[in-house]
């Protein structure tokens, strides 16, 4: 008897609890509002910039991984360098700048009438502080001095024409009155940032963070009043959020973008920037071993790969043609020397490759593989397992080379192993990327990826900031790089680049494959003012530092 009474009570209790929770769920799911809660509320812009959960509140521009809004939406630099198209830098917090003839000093005029979001005025002292504080100071900077209330002068210890974009375009201005008391500038989380940018900090949770429009912004208050950055862990989830209408701005690779843009709310813009190449350990005198140290083998490989097929099969046709000059075709046309082929061959030419090899003394052995002086042309090609686009490139290159008489073995390794190999130089061929420059000038690549100063012998690990993984060492190139670095005259630079391009187009230390796609999806139905193919006023991706601030300040809700 007792048992059944107890059981009745238990059942009643369970039913009650279930009923209440169902009721609550019912209450809220009908109130699961869209972001325009009421008819008077403005539409919130939902962005995914690549942040994952849990979102950590860190708006410190000197930290290695601050939240994206810090770089451009909250803090700004003096000028904006648009790497999406050729052109002069746009004034932001700076108005004009002049170089001294010798490149040892730079004078900048500062915009007046700008205030920080805490009300204090933006002054030259803030600019001086932003260059000279211990977290920001560049080893090339001698001093930053105030000339008068509107002008600042930067003095360098060597000609810094090529450092222009770092100093004027990516150094962010921070308020001296707040940062001077911070003991450890690199590790401070800066949870309530004060900046001059179009947006200010609103809230941070584990799952997202929001910024609201800065009504006193010097360029006019932004028309989009609130931006929400989401934390999403998987690309697939971000894609689902795009298709279900929850995200308005995201940048990621999607092989079939029509599926997402088809319904009509979203548009896609593709702005390829970073070349994908075959790294080769190229210079025997630096310690490289293997057939790829012979120029003829590298030239043959360059002629053997079918870039059109690779673009279709590995990059879903979304990549752009590469140039052996590493200048971005279109944007950087003026820098390309007329003596060099601007575009890498887009189809395979095994006959030409055979001619190159045979002209260098290689003969085909009985097994169909070329050999010279008893050494067969057998190479190993490394890619990271799981990076499917590179894996496909590796497979296609290996089979094309194999058909033509060069034995290429495609090996897949972990990311850690790949990193160790390229830093130490213990590889023969590797599929990898080159980081594109931050402005419309390929010089950064010539210096950091190709000059002897930025490499080490095989066996010695490269330091951070050195990207010459190919161990390329060419005194002609080094001299031309030094020449180009010391001048701001466009013709002198073009002459130096022409020398560089002749060298690398012949030597091919990095064999170009394609220029990687960079797809950005934007909600063109609910918002207007996005960068378009015709009006590429900024580099479109949602994660792009400084550009994102420019785009956000120009967006407005579409008239409905």
């Amino acid at each position, binding site marked *: 008897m007792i048992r059944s009474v107890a059981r009745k009570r238990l059942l009643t209790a369970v039913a009650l609890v279930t009923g209440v929770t169902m009721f609550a769920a019912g209450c809220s799911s009908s109130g699961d509002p869209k972001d325009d809660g009421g008819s008077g509320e403005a539409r919130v812009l939902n962005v995914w910039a*690549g942040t994952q959960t849990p979102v950590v509140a860190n708006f410190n521009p000197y930290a290695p991984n601050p939240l994206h809004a810090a770089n451009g939406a909250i803090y700004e630099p003096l000028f904006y360098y648009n790497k999406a198209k050729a052109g002069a830098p746009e004034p932001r917090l700076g108005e004009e700048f002049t170089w001294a003839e010798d490149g040892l000093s730079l004078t900048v005029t500062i915009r007046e009438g700008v205030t920080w979001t805490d009300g204090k005025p933006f002054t030259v002292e803030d600019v001086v502080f932003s260059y000279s504080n211990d*977290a920001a100071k560049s080893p090339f900077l001698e001093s930053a001095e105030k000339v008068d209330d509107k002008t600042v002068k930067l003095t360098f210890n060597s000609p810094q024409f090529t450092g222009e974009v770092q100093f004027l375009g990516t150094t962010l201005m921070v308020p001296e009155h707040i940062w001077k008391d911070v003991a450890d500038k690199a590790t401070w989380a800066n949870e309530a940032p004060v900046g001059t940018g179009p947006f200010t900090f609103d809230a941070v949770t584990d799952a997202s963070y929001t910024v609201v429009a800065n009504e006193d912004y010097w360029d006019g208050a932004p028309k989009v009043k609130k931006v*929400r950055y989401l934390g999403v862990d998987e690309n697939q989830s971000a894609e689902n959020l795009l298709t279900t209408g*929850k995200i308005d701005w995201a940048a990621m690779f999607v092989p079939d973008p029509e599926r997402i843009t088809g319904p009509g709310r979203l548009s896609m813009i593709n702005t390829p920037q970073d070349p994908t190449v075959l790294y080769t350990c190229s210079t025997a005198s630096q310690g490289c071993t293997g057939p790829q140290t012979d120029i003829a083998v590298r030239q043959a490989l360059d002629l053997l790969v079918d870039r059109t097929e690779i673009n279709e099969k590995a990059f879903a046709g979304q990549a752009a043609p590469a140039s052996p000059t590493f200048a971005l075709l279109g944007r950087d046309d003026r820098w390309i020397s007329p003596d060099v082929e601007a575009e890498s061959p887009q189809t395979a030419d095994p006959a030409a490759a055979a001619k190159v090899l045979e002209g260098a003394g290689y003969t085909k052995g009985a097994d169909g593989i070329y050999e010279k002086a008893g050494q067969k042309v057998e190479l190993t090609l490394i890619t990271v397992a799981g990076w499917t686009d590179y894996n496909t490139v590796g497979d296609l290159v290996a089979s094309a080379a194999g058909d033509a008489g060069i034995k290429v073995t495609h090996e897949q390794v972990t*990311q850690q192993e790949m990193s160790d190999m390229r830093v130490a130089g213990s590889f023969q061929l590797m599929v990898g990327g080159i980081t*594109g420059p931050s402005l419309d000038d390929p010089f950064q690549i010539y210096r950091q990826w190709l000059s002897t100063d930025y490499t080490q012998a095989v066996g010695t690990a490269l330091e951070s900031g050195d990207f010459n993984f190919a161990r390329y060492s060419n005194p002609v190139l080094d001299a031309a790089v030094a020449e180009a670095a010391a001048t701001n005259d466009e013709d002198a630079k073009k002459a130096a680049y022409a020398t560089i391009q002749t060298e690398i187009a012949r030597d091919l230390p990095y064999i170009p494959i394609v220029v990687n796609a960079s797809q950005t999806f934007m909600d063109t139905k609910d918002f207007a003012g996005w960068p378009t193919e015709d009006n590429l006023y900024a580099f479109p991706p949602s994660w792009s530092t400084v550009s994102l601030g420019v785009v956000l300040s120009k967006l407005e809700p579409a008239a409905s």
Partner: protein
Amino acid sequence: MRFFARRITFYLITLWAAISLNFAIPKMMPGDPKQLFMEKLMRKGIEITPGMQKSIDLLFGEDDSSLWDQYVSYLNNIFHGNLGVSTTFFPKPVTELIAAALPWTLGLMGIATIISFVLGIAGGAWVGWKRGTWVDHVIPASTLLQALPYFWLALILISTFAVTLQWFPVIGGYDIFSYDYGPEWSWSFVGSVIYHGTLPAMTIIISSVGGWLLGMRNMMVATLSEDYITTAEAKGLRPMRIARTYATRNAALPSIAGFGISLGFVVAGSVVMEEVFSYPGLGKLLFDAVRENDYALMQGVFLVITVAVLAANFIMDMIYGFIDPRTRHNA
């Protein structure tokens, strides 16, 4: 009494061994977290300025003291509740990250495991009771569901219910579009949590109910052939009373032991499921920590999982000792 004392001592020793292993194993893993971190930045196309280089060096600071000193300070830190600072989610301390993630994992996984256990036991009892009839066919169907990979099932559910039909949300533990200031104690928030937890819970329930069902059904069939069941039937008790009070309770004993173990592993969360749903739980933290070679976070999460498994086992041991007198008397 001696039974309990022995058990407690045993668990304490196991706990110490687990903590020591937790310290030693990550130290033996290959890979340099600093290099990996810089790779990540370079892949994103971010330039490493001198200021950033300084902060990276600070983050991954080298510890040159001897292994024994490190061990002692590690134990000391644990007892003071200091689990270090995470490098992946710099500068958040590990204790904060785990404290934020733990309720979500316990809530979702705990409730889902309990629901699947209850459904499995009830279903297994019913199938066992009705042995020999068409109901037997439920078993292969449910074990088929069990064989489906978690990950694939989660993706199918999302693709069908969240993207195509849009009945359920795509990601999140709660509605991230409405609660910009974080979780709050209100009925609508509770409702949002339940709404967002439905699909992840379904993934877990669908893929694990089969195991409980099968085990329970087998035990049920074995129990039903016992003499005391025949006696009960002969005495004239109602069939439902026999099923509930005599058969199920005895048949469930092994499953309860298994339940204790699986309850301990609840804390590990379902790594893949949390990654796919961006669910803010412990499994996701573990996944990120291992991927980024974040030693402090890894050790913290391993510690929590180990302690939870041991605690759950201990509690289940005690409960088992209570509900089944036979274990006590022979101890």
